[in-house]
Structure formats: C-alpha cells, structure tokens
C-alpha cells in the first residue's frame, strides 16, 4: 500500500539553520544568510527518505514564540496551529535549534509541545558546538523533554543522515490520534516558568565551556566601536561602489566587444532590411547593452552576499539604529533597506519582520528609493559617457565617487521622506523598540555564495531575455514603422511611431532637459529600469543608420549636453520605473492606494529633482 505523503514543518528560533536544513533535505536553493529574519515566507519542498517514504517539508520564518508579533511570525504560528486556510497541520514538527545556543529554542520547544503535534528536536550546527567544546547528553535531553533528539550539520554533506533515519523510524509508528492542542498565548509568568524549566534542563544535559567565540568578540571590538564601527561601515560601502567600477571594467569591455563583433557579423552576413535591423538594432544593441552590465551586478551581489553570510548585517543595523531612528525608522528597517540595494522586491518582502504596522508601511514606501541593481546600467552608462575617469586625490576614481554620490543621494532622500512621513502624518510618535540578536560571525561558505550569485545572475539574464527583450521588440517596432516614404531625406526614424510619441511627450519633459528619444525610452522603462538603457540603444542605433557601429555611450556623449545627463541621473534616483516593485507594494500593503501613493510621490520627486538639476547645470554653463 502506498503510504500517504508525510508532512514535516521546520520551526525554530531565527538563524538556527532551518533553511539550510530545508535546502539540504530537498536540494533547493532558498536564501540562507547569517542574520535573524532571512526567511519571511512559507516554502514547501519534497524529498524521499532512505526507506522510500515520500515527504513534504515546509520551511517557515524563524520565531521566538507562537505569539505572532509580526507578519512573518504569524505565518509560522498559523501554519503550526493549522490556522492557515486549506492547510494540513504538519504530521511531525522538526524543532531546529542552534546547538551553541539552546536556551531560547528549548523554551520555544516547551511552548510548541502544547500544540500536541508530534515533534523532534534537531540539534543543528553541531559542528560549531563540537568545535567550541560544548557537549550535549543527547539521550538525557530526549528523556527530559520526552521526545526524540537528533544532531545535524545542515551545511555538511551527509550531515542530515541521522535526521533522515529518525524520520523513517518515526513515520513508521506515527500515531494516528494526535494529542489535543492545548496551546494558547502564554502569560508572562508562564513564559518565565518555561524559560526556567528550559534553563534547568539545559543545566542538566549540556556542559558549556566558559569559552565564548573569541573571534566574534575580537571582530566586534573593532566593528561595533562607536566611532570606528561607523568608519568601517562607510569604508565597506565605499569600497563596494569603487569595486563596481574598477573591477567590472575589463569584463564589461570584453562583453561589449563581443556584442560589437556579433553586431558586425549580423550586419555583414545578412542582407540589408528589416531582419538585419531587428537583430542588429533591436536585439544586439538593445538587449546586449543591458547584458553588458552583468559583471557589475555580480560584484554588488558578491559584496552583499559576503556581508550577509559573514554576519555583518545585524551589526550594521546596530550601528545605524539611532541614525535611522532620528528619521523615524524602525531599527529593524535597516536590513530590508540594505537588501534593497540589490533589489527592492526582496527588500519590501523583508519588512515582514517589522512588528509595527505603520513602521512597516514607512519602510515599504521608501525601500524603492534605495539604489537597486537595476539602476546600475543607467548610472554606469551615463557616468562613463560624461564623467572623466580621473583620479581624485590620487587614489579615488571620480566615476566611482559620482556613483557613491548617487547611492548616498538615494539613502539621504529615503531618510528625508521617512522624516516627512513621521512629521506630517502626525503619528503619535514613540520610538519602536529595537531588539535584535547579533549572531556569531561565520566564515562565508564559497558554495552558498556561488549559489547566491548564480541565482541572481540567472534572474538578471532571464529578465534580459523576457521583459527587456519583449520591450525591445516593441521599441524596435515603434522606431521602425511606419517606414519613410521613398526619397525622404530625413533620418528614417523621424517618420516612425516612436518619434511621434516621443515628440508628443517632449514638451512635458523639455523643462527637465529630456529630448524626444529619452521620452520614448522612459515609457517602456516603466516596466523595468534597465529597459531605458536598451531602448536608448535601439533608438539611437536605428537613428544612426547603417554606419552606426558606435557604442551607445559614445552616442550619448555627442547627443546630450552634460546638463541633460545630470538631469537623467537625478531622475533615476527617484523615478518609480519598475512595475514589479509596484506590484509587490500592492501585495504587501494589500492596497492599491499605497501603490498609487508610492508611484505618485516618486514621480513628483523625480520631476522636481530633474528640473532643479537641469536648471542649475544650465546656469553653471553645462547646457
């Protein structure tokens, strides 16, 4: 007889390695990082035990209790209690503990026992515990707790074999009659009593050497120094933006010359005509001009992933807490905002760790102002075309400095908007509490970094192949049709739909110094920011005609004034040019109104910033 699917759930305190375990069991590649609150969604995966039992396992956000204080913790509570609509309650709960730090998990486990679900305690990170000289009397612990206990090393090959064996054993004799659920929110005195009980059990079963992680203490002495720490944080961010320019250059040039050669090949092998124009101008000049930025995207992700895996994120949140608090932001808003440097979408999702509704909303509203990686192509293109690659004071690259300035502008404006929200929405303001576990540092694992970068690079390329490609087809079509009448002397593009649309919009954008080509590029650019680069590539390639073998950057340098270029940079700091971000805001706030608010305020800021930049630049003689 085929046994029914066995349902497992991974529950535990934040950062105990649930997702690592999930990945190890199911072969998935869910995001793992060394700070509390990485997982904010429920994820299901499947595997087969050594004895052939089909298993479904659900990874859940970490939590210290079942009270459900914030949206992510509610997900865990509802799943464990079977409140989520249409969900089966788990047959077996795997309570995952960080073995070096059992106090909070054992307390949680005592609370979980009241739900009546069959449960196993998984002592994860047992490798670290062993290295520190922590010994656990596993049998005694199992007896005291009245449930099976198993050790595991989620990040090592074969590190979950004991757990797999135990799953088989338990599933064979899993009682059909589950115990009654007697869980209810614990009172303060019950909480205290369970923590006492947990501490007693730990004292009986675990021997801790009086040797905390000395490396963590040593690093923190520098990194959390009141002044030194902020300097280190600034240096790290500064290095990141310098690296985006300096390290990526050779690779980008290689990619660029590859695309140039490809375009040349298409040009010479295909006969003149629509197909040649489509491939050369639409696909290669358009999509190619975005793909060229892959090395930069990889570098920025490399930095963020290294910081996340090392355990620096929670420290950065500590250092920034008061500064962000001054702008009316919740201390836990820092990590979502820093993640938004990669992409606002995971950043907005990560706000689920914020318990206070209004604090969460403020963070969601300003997250799109953080400079996401999709802005990199736009910024880089314009900076390389208009800002000389001089060194300032001998060692700082001027282009890198401008890039840093743009990132800083994003951060400052996010703080300013938050401040305005706090000020004008007349919130009865009391600083929300900031309580965050600072995990021990861990050596970043090359494999997980590699997987992280691979996932991101793939996402970028898939986007280039889908969203950007389809927008490019549209732009190419608009820029190519209708064809000019025979004998026309003006460039062909002047007769196209694109030119008509662009010229119709141009008066609206003329005050900020945008020409009709930019106007055309901004419309598909609403779908995704990089599209604007691709669109400019296509429009100028078609406009340039056959001889235009020039790269888009060189074209811009001749066609735009410096004032227009600066105005474009200012526009992109603010403009809400990303359909997916707006969709996520709508989903996470559950309201179209907040999406509309975000869109409007960003558009207004973009226009104002560009207007100011353009006019100041013109007044200074850059027009």
């Amino acid at each position: 007889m085929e046994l029914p699917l066995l349902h497992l759930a991974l529950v535990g305190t934040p950062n105990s390695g649930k997702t690592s375990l999930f990945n190890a069991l199911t072969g998935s590649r869910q995001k793992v990082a060394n700070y509390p609150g990485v997982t904010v969604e429920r994820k299901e995966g499947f595997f087969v035990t050594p004895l052939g039992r089909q298993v479904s396992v659900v990874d859940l956000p970490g939590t210290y209790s079942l009270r459900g204080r914030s949206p992510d913790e509610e997900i865990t509570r509802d799943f464990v209690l079977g409140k989520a609509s249409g969900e089966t309650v788990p047959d077996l709960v795997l309570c995952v503990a960080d073995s070096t730090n059992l106090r909070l998990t054992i307390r949680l486990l005592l609370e979980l026992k009241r739900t009546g679900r069959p449960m196993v305690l998984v002592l994860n990170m047992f490798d670290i515990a062993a290295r520190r000289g922590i010994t656990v009397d596993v049998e005694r612990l199992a007896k005291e707790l009245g449930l099976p206990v198993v050790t595991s090393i989620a990040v090592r090959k074969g590190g979950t074999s004991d757990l797999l064996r135990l799953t088989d054993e338990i599933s064979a004799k899993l009682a059909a009659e589950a115990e009654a659920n007697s869980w209810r929110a614990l009172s303060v005195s019950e909480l205290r009593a369970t923590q006492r009980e947990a501490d007693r059990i730990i004292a009986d079963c675990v021997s801790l050497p009086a040797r905390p992680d000395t490396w963590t203490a040593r690093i923190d002495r520098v990194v959390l120094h009141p002044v030194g720490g902020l300097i280190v944080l600034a240096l790290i961010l500064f290095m990141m933006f310098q690296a985006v320019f300096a390290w990526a250059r050779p690779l980008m040039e290689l990619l660029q010359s590859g695309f140039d050669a490809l375009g040349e090949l298409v040009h010479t092998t295909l006969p003149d005509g629509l197909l040649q124009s489509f491939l050369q101008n639409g696909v290669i000049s358009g999509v190619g001009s975005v793909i060229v930025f892959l090395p930069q995207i990889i570098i920025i992700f490399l930095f963020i992933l290294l910081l996340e895996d090392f355990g620096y994120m929670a420290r950065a949140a500590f250092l920034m807490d008061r500064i962000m608090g001054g702008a009316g932001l919740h201390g836990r808003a820092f990590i979502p905002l820093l993640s938004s440097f990669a992409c606002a979408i995971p950043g907005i999702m990560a706000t689920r760790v914020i318990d206070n509704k209004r604090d969460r909303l403020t963070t969601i509203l300003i997250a799109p102002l953080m400079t996401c990686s999709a802005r990199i192509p736009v910024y880089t293109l314009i900076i390389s075309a208009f800002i000389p690659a001089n060194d300032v004071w001998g060692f700082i690259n001027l282009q890198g400095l401008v890039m840093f300035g743009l990132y800083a502008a994003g951060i400052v404006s996010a703080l300013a908007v938050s401040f305005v929200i706090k000020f004008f929405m007349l919130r009865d303001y009391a600083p929300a509490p900031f309580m965050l576990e600072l995990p021990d540092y861990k050596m970043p694992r090359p494999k997980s970094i590699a997987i992280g970068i691979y996932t991101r690079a793939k996402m970028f390329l898939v986007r280039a192949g889908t969203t950007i490609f389809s927008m490019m087809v549209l732009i190419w079509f608009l820029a190519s049709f209708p064809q000019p009448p025979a004998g026309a002397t003006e460039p062909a593009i002047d007769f196209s739909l694109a030119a008509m649309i662009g010229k119709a919009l141009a008066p609206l954008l003329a005050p900020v110094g945008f020409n009709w080509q930019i106007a055309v590029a901004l419309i598909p650019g609403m779908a995704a920011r990089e599209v604007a680069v691709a669109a400019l590539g296509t429009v100028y390639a078609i406009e340039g005609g056959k001889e235009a073998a020039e790269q888009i950057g060189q074209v811009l340098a001749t066609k735009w004034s410096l004032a227009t270029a600066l105005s474009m940079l200012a526009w992109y700091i603010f403009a809400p040019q990303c359909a997916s971000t707006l969709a996520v805001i709508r989903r996470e706030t559950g309201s179209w109104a907040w999406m509309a608010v975000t869109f409007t305020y960003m558009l207004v800021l973009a226009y104002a910033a560009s207007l100011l930049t353009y006019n100041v630049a013109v007044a200074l003689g850059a027009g």
Partner: protein
Amino acid sequence: MTDTNDMRPHMPLGLAQRGYTGVIQHLSAGETGSALSDIELESRLIELGFVEGARVEVLHEGLVGRDPIAVRVDSITIAVRRREAMAVIVA
C-alpha cells in the same frame, strides 16, 4: 544569584556603562516609556533570554547617546535600546 550580587545596588540595565557585568534580579516593565505595553515588553525580553538569574554584560554601545547597547545574555548577544533595557533590573 550569589551573595556578592545581593549586596550590590540594584539598577536598570539601561543605565549600565560599557563593560558592566551583573546578574538579572527582576524585570519591571512599567514606566520605561517604551512604545510597547508592559506585558508585551516583558514577554519579549523573556523570549530573548532576559530572565532572573541570567548573567549580563554590556559589550558595546552606539555613538549617539551611547545607544543602543549590545548585551551578552548568557550565551547570546542581543542589541537593545536603552529605553527597553530600563525594564531589566540588574545587580
């Protein structure tokens, strides 16, 4: 709780300087001015391991107003603002 600790004056953790070590005597969530209700604040502190008898050490302080503080609570390090730490009475 040892005798030496009983003789030390009780004080809120929120007033402790960097380098302070002590043992938690009790929690008193009233009048801290935290945005959380008393019960909620006390529950959260307990859930992070701030219970009677736990050893604490103030490891680090922030720059602005020496806030927040990073506190070692037995085997883990917790970052917390001084305002909330006022609820933890140590000696």
